[in-house]
């Protein structure tokens, strides 16, 4: 048997429902300081990068990893924005609480409410290209999907099929005490996020390399991506942002900044067929701002 569960330390306290957890006061105008202490989480350990075999299968795994970490270069024709797989799945898809690939691999095929059908892993990956990368789904039987599947499969070596593993997805977040707020979010953004993502959420490019992804605007994920949902973004942010300081924002701060980020225009939902209201009713029965008026803009109205 080759199932390796190690005790790893993660930076995230994800004690959902623990309403009593202290929310430390933040000195106004200062960057948030770490508010959590690492707690041990029993997490699956994917195999070490060095152990990718030196054969045809290993080649496919490496290609998958390259596509995953440099999607713009290795799967350029399927990407329609400045986003890469690794932007939402940190540490090349290995990191617990950052929607790790190993946890996803053992949970598909599965029914998804998003499209009201059973999705295979390949369909799930295609969804990432369509929404998060605002592009064209790679063909189900093509090399891009095959390589990404091979990489995910390889990362999951030893993981039990069909089992919901600790660290899968993003840790569900407590509800905020206060309604998420745009102005508070804007301040948190300026203090904690703008450093990398730019004052206007535009991200950073260097030559032909996307270094930090844009968070809104025409080069960001679109109105169909999971990350446009405030709860999803808040959960991701709380666990993982700022990069290297995951867990340093409070629950309230994570909600506020997620609300702020997702109160900006971004590329249209690809399921949009000409009627904003109809699209909202059909696909946006969740915590998001699609169709809401922000300032003079109705979000989704002027989308690319």
């Amino acid at each position, binding site marked *: 048997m080759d199932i390796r569960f190690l005790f790893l330390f993660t930076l995230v306290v994800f004690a959902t429902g623990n309403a009593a957890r202290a929310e430390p006061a933040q000195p106004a105008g200062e960057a948030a300081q770490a508010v959590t202490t690492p707690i041990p989480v029993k997490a699956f350990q994917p195999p070490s990068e060095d152990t990718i075999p030196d054969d045809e299968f290993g080649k496919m795994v490496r290609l998958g990893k390259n596509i995953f970490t440099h999607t713009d270069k290795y799967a350029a024709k399927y990407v329609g924005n400045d986003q890469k797989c690794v932007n939402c799945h*940190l540490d090349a898809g290995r990191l617990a609480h950052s929607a790790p690939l190993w946890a996803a691999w053992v949970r598909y095929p599965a029914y998804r409410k998003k499209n009201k059908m059973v999705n295979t892993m390949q369909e799930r990956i295609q969804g990432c290209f369509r929404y998060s990368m605002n592009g064209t789904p790679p063909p189900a039987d093509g090399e891009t999907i095959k390589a990404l599947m091979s990489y995910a499969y390889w990362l999951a070596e030893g993981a039990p099929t069909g089992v919901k593993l600790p660290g899968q997805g993003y840790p569900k977040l407590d509800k905020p005490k206060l309604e998420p707020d745009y102005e508070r979010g804007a301040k948190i953004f300026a203090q904690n996020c703008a450093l990398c993502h730019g004052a206007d959420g535009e991200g950073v490019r260097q030559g032909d390399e996307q270094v930090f992804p844009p968070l809104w605007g025409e080069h960001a994920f679109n109105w169909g991506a999971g990350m446009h949902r405030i709860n999803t973004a808040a959960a991701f942010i709380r666990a993982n942002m700022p*990069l290297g300081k995951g867990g340093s924002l409070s629950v309230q701060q994570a909600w506020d900044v997620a609300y702020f980020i997702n109160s900006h225009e971004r590329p249209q939902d690809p399921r949009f067929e000409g009627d904003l209201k109809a699209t909202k009713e059909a696909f946006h029965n969740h915590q998001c701002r699609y169709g809401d008026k922000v300032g003079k803009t109705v979000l989704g109205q002027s989308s690319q």
Partner: protein
Amino acid sequence: MKIRISVSLACAAVAYAASALAAPPSGKTIAQQGNGKGAPGCISCHGDKGQGNAGAGYPYLAGQPKAYLVHQLKAFADQTRKSPVMQPFASALSAEEMDAVAEYFAALPLPKTGGKAGTADAVGKRLATQGKWSVGMPACFQCHGDRGQGVAPNFPAISGQSEDYLKKQLEHWRKGERSNDPIGLMQSVVGHLEESEIAAVSRYLATLSPAKAP
């Protein structure tokens, strides 16, 4: 002898002060000759092309993001970055001069330092390219560019930098002698590293050339 020198220095100072009144010294002038107000020419320590002096542990400045350089000069002055050597020099520069000299060095090409192929340290390489996510530490290259060449405006080039310099900086972050990092990012990151890892990653980065892919 002594007097003559003093006189000539005084003359130079007067001449300089006069020209300063007319226009502030250019970034190039400050870099090469100093500002005449206590800041010597940067190149005396950092190399004539801003390429640093690895042996002495002086970092290269050439090709670093301008905003980063300005931020460091201010940090030396306000001592959020503690350096007995740099503190008086930085304090001697006006904001305008800091801006000018930073712009000068930022415009120079990244030096062709490092590039010692085959000396890759496995631990150091892993930290630089993959990080240590088991404790929440991202790869160095995630923020400092995919080959450590820096990412403007806030993340300096680190590849090919003096090993000694890199190691000292990481230790300074850890001890709090340097605390001018935005959002406390570097302090947080370094807190996850062991001493041997600091040594390894410094050693590894020093072997790379910021000017070309590793």
